[in-house]
């Protein structure tokens, strides 16, 4: 993957700073807009995943670059937490209530459903647009979650590995979820290389990715990372089935439908592992993480709602 196309003065600074390892002559400017800011943070986070062919690998741990990343992460975390505050955060009295509190959060979520639209009404161009946006995450599916493994107590760690093993294909590279998605993209004529559609990504898409990277990269945010994972898995099985129906309706079945088909079955299992064996035991072992788990779950649902709202509005759907 090559460095993305800048969207303003800050992402321009980031891109040129990463392309040239030397300290910058000028300090990083303030972002022009949210779009510029989210692309800048996405680019900085990407250094810890697969990196860029045209970036210096040492930039990942360069203090000047880290300073900018820290500034942007602080702003993002404040934004996410203030939305949770505004939504009227739930708090659990006893850690053992975490799985049922997660279930209640998911049940109360009334955001618009992209999968419903795909199943019934979306046209081919809309589905391709949705898949291009989704590709930013699905081509690295589960990777940010993997960072959390060493930070968990015994039971949550074993449960996360049980889940991740399945995400990563149970040892079979052909069944790795990100690989299944790449095969699906190829089959419907979209580009499947890692990061192919970042230049087309909506700021909402970048923010979803930035949030999950933020949670995955910081040990302090392990509870939020696991809550986010639980909400993601708990809202996947039924919508994945609708995606299969919509893709088949539009003659886009085959490998892309197979990717979603895999998630109908896998996530019907994973949601229980995530809510009970991961989040439930984490809250029991580290009670101060209970409310963080719910913050992470809310963030997952809220960012998906924002993404779906913008996309559906752009289609006048």
């Amino acid at each position, binding site marked *: 993957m090559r460095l993305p196309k800048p969207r303003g003065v800050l992402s321009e600074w980031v891109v040129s700073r990463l392309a040239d390892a030397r300290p910058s002559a000028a300090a990083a400017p303030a972002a022009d807009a949210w779009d510029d800011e989210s692309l800048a943070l996405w680019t900085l986070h990407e250094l810890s995943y697969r990196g860029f062919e045209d970036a210096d690998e040492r930039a990942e741990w360069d203090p000047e670059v880290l300073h900018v990343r820290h500034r942007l992460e602080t702003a993002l975390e404040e934004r996410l937490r203030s939305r949770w505050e505004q939504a009227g955060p739930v708090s659990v009295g006893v850690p053992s209530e975490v799985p049922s509190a997660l279930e209640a959060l998911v049940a109360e979520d009334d955001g618009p459903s992209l999968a419903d639209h795909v199943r019934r009404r979306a046209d081919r161009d809309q589905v391709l647009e949705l898949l291009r946006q989704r590709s930013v995450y699905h081509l690295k599916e589960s990777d940010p979650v993997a960072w959390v493994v060493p930070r968990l107590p015994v039971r949550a760690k074993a449960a996360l590995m049980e889940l991740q093993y399945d995400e990563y294909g149970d040892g079979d590279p052909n069944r790795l979820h990100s690989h299944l998605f790449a095969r699906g993209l190829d089959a419907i004529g979209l580009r499947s290389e890692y990061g192919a559609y970042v230049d087309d990504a909506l700021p909402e898409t970048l923010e979803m990715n930035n949030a999950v990277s933020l949670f995955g990269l910081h040990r302090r945010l392990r509870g939020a990372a696991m809550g986010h994972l639980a909400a993601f898995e708990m809202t996947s099985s039924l919508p994945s*089935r609708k995606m299969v129906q919509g893709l088949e309706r539009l003659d886009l079945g085959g490998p892309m439908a197979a990717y979603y088909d895999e998630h109908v*079955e896998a996530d019907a299992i994973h949601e*229980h592992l995530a809510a009970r064996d991961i989040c439930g035991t984490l809250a029991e072992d580290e009670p101060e993480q209970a409310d963080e788990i719910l913050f992470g779950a809310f963030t997952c649902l809220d960012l998906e709602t924002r993404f779906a709202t913008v996309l559906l509005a752009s289609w006048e759907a």
Partner: protein
Amino acid sequence: MPERDYDHPDVVICPDGPLLLRNATSVQDADGVVHDVRRPVVALCRCEKSSRLPWCDGTHKVIPRG
């Protein structure tokens, strides 16, 4: 605190949800068809409304709880 061992059952009944089964290699459904298992854990439908029996597909969540 000293280390202890934890429960890790092979069969787990989820409240208002499926039955989780660990370490199975094959499952025979109600019609006698045998399905290979390729995952460390599978979820077996208990509400009988799944579109892909014997596996759970989450359909129980849209059925009113009696």
